């Protein structure tokens, strides 16, 4: 009887390796999970359909659970294109020699982080971050994801730069909400008193009437910095045919479906290059996120 079972196990483990099927010629892309999942799936399925039509190839979007998972999938060549944030893009391009930033949103040239506070804190909005020091000290504070540019890197940079202390020393409690929508909800509900998020998410949610402005308000806006971009692996031409990279780039730059653009939300895509993200790399090295 035991032997019988052993045989079954053996057969099953053999079969398992057989399920490893190749879908080599599907062009796969991913995106950092910076917002609510349903929104991302809706948005990027639209992009997949669009690219599939433009490139005349099978295009598939896979959702991931963390920024690092997006970077790893890109590095491991399980996805060939990704919608990264500034920081995740820098990380990914460092790990994959030959990969290139090919397009960014019109808004990504000058992106911003908004610091928001629950109104019960009584913090008054200011133009000068330093003047908020007394009011911010010992409040509870949440970043977005650990790997986020607008939700972690830039706010941490300005906190350290302005107050001369690590976030843990400025605030009584520091958390990582996971994504921008979540940061907004947590500060709105008062779970955290202060938070920092992507300004596009704030403006879109505000425009859609999803923010209780009696409960939460913007208290400070960072100076502009470069953020999101489409990054593609350097070896796609070998795999999908000559000129494939340029066709992907052109397809992204030509994207003008208002509904699709609105879902990002971006007004359009413009060319980008790796050098555009040098400031992000320097900032990340300065606060020790990059070695």
């Amino acid at each position: 009887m035991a032997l019988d079972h052993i045989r079954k196990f053996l057969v099953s483990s053999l079969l398992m390796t057989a399920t490893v099927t190749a879908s080599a010629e599907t062009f796969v892309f991913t995106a950092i999970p910076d917002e609510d999942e349903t929104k991302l799936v809706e948005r990027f399925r639209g992009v997949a359909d669009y690219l599939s039509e433009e490139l005349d190839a099978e295009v598939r979007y896979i959702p991931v659970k963390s920024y690092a998972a997006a970077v790893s999938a890109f590095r491991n060549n399980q996805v060939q294109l990704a919608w990264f944030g500034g920081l995740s893009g820098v990380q990914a391009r460092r790990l994959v020699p030959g990969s290139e930033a090919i397009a960014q949103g019109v808004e990504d040239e000058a992106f911003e982080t908004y610091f928001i506070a629950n109104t019960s804190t009584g913090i008054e909005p200011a133009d000068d971050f330093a003047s908020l020091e007394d009011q911010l000290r010992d409040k509870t504070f949440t970043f977005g994801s650990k790997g986020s540019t607008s939700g972690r890197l830039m706010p941490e940079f300005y906190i350290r730069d302005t107050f001369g202390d690590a976030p843990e020393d400025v605030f009584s409690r520091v958390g990582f909400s996971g994504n921008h929508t979540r940061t907004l909800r947590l500060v709105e509900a008062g779970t955290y008193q202060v938070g920092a998020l992507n300004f596009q998410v704030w403006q879109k949610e505000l425009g859609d009437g999803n923010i209780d402005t009696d409960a939460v308000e913007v208290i400070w806006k960072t100076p502009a910095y470069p953020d999101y971009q489409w990054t593609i692996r350097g070896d796609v031409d070998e795999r999908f045919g000559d000129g494939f990279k340029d066709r992907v780039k052109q397809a992204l730059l030509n994207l003008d479906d208002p509904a699709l653009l609105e879902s990002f939300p971006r007004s359009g895509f413009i060319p980008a290059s790796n050098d555009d993200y040098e400031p992000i790399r320097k900032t990340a090295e300065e606060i020790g996120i990059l070695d």
Partner: protein
Amino acid sequence: MFSYPTVRTSLAFLAIAVVGLAFADIAITAANPWRDLGNFFLGVITPNFFSSEGLLTALLRTVAFAFVGVALGSFFGFFLALVYRAWPVRIFCAFIRAIHELFWALIFLQFFGFHPLTGVLAIAIPYSGIFAKVYSEILDEADPEPGRLLPPGTGRIAAFLYARIPDCWAQMRTYTAYRLECGLRSSAILGFVGLPTLGFYLEASFSQGLYSDAGAMLILFYVLIATIPLWVRPKLLPVYVLGAPFFLGEGLPIVWGNVERFFTEDIIPSPLKDGEGLSGLMSWAGDLMVEQALPGIWNTVVLTQVALVATGILALLMFPLISKHFGGPVRRTSGHVFLVVARSTPEYILAYILLQLWGPSMLPAVIALALHNGAIIGHLIGRQTNGIRLRPDAVTGFGRYSWELVPRIYRSFLAFLFYRWEIIMRETAILGILGIYTLGFYVDSAIQNIQFDKAMVLILITAGLNIGIDALGRYIRSKLALQTMPTC
């Protein structure tokens, strides 16, 4: 009473927990925790079963990963059990089971990516270590008499198969079936790191406050676990085990170069890669210890000790819910339902829910760990009290509880509790991924920063801590002469 070693040990652990509590960060930081909890329960009683097209597929995948993972685990565990006497095997098994399924998944994700193998191995590897240990314990306790009665010259394999296995078969089968239930829980939470199981959708619905969707998923999961005796039949098992590999989903193809890169580059400490030599390595390791490992270890130990004692207290409070010495059938049935729900919900999911509702601190983690583990132990000792026959004129009510039952089950209660000590610590470490500053938090941060060298060192430290606690737990159990049967 204080002269009893069991009482003294209990009080010592209670004291440690009270001191730990003074250092622990326990606070409800949400502004409206009870309103959110109310909304959540409202969601559970108004479940929306048609929320996600992927829900049924996710359930199917959850079952498939559990079957394949547990089958492979028990297969390899069985062979490891045969050579479990050897020291290297023992150490190897202790090591692989000291690393939580989620950590294994995070490691495999780095080079297998979203391939089914990631989820299968994440379950199969630690389960092999657990199966090896438990199977070998079961085999050791087999009655040696049938073996001695065999005619001289009987081959070792024949003797093993005909004299040893039959005596252990029932116990091994029961334990394997029980592990399958654990496998379903493990499989479900793998979704939280991106595998296509239930946790994937649960996390998505929860983080968006779609409580009715999340409620539906939880209810389906409870039904799945509660109906195991109905759908897991010995005759159907081969069908499941053979069929499961076909339902793991396709994932993405493995690129084997990534595996090599992971082991030859990614996990090599960065100062060695950059040629900074031994001094560079020392300062790298020193920084890692001071800034991440030590705070992580401290928080992990504090949370574990508090959660252990909370588990004990809850178990003692909950066992009367299903004991036939108290209340009638209505009370007992609802008690059963409550305990089944509490122990079927993985700690990770309970902690996730409470963290979302109450804000981040150790409190949600303590309550999640205590509810889940307390319900398991409460269930076991509650069942045990049903075998106790009291005198017809025995006292009733609180007197019966404190003078008749608790003293009779206290030793096995402690045995279960110390058995679960290591399990609680394994879970405590992993809860860091949710934002509590235990070792898992630093592991997750290192992975988010793509610093796998740091992540691996921290995972090894976590494993070492677990092995230490496991040994200490075994030492205390043998000191107090406590015996137990394994639970997951």
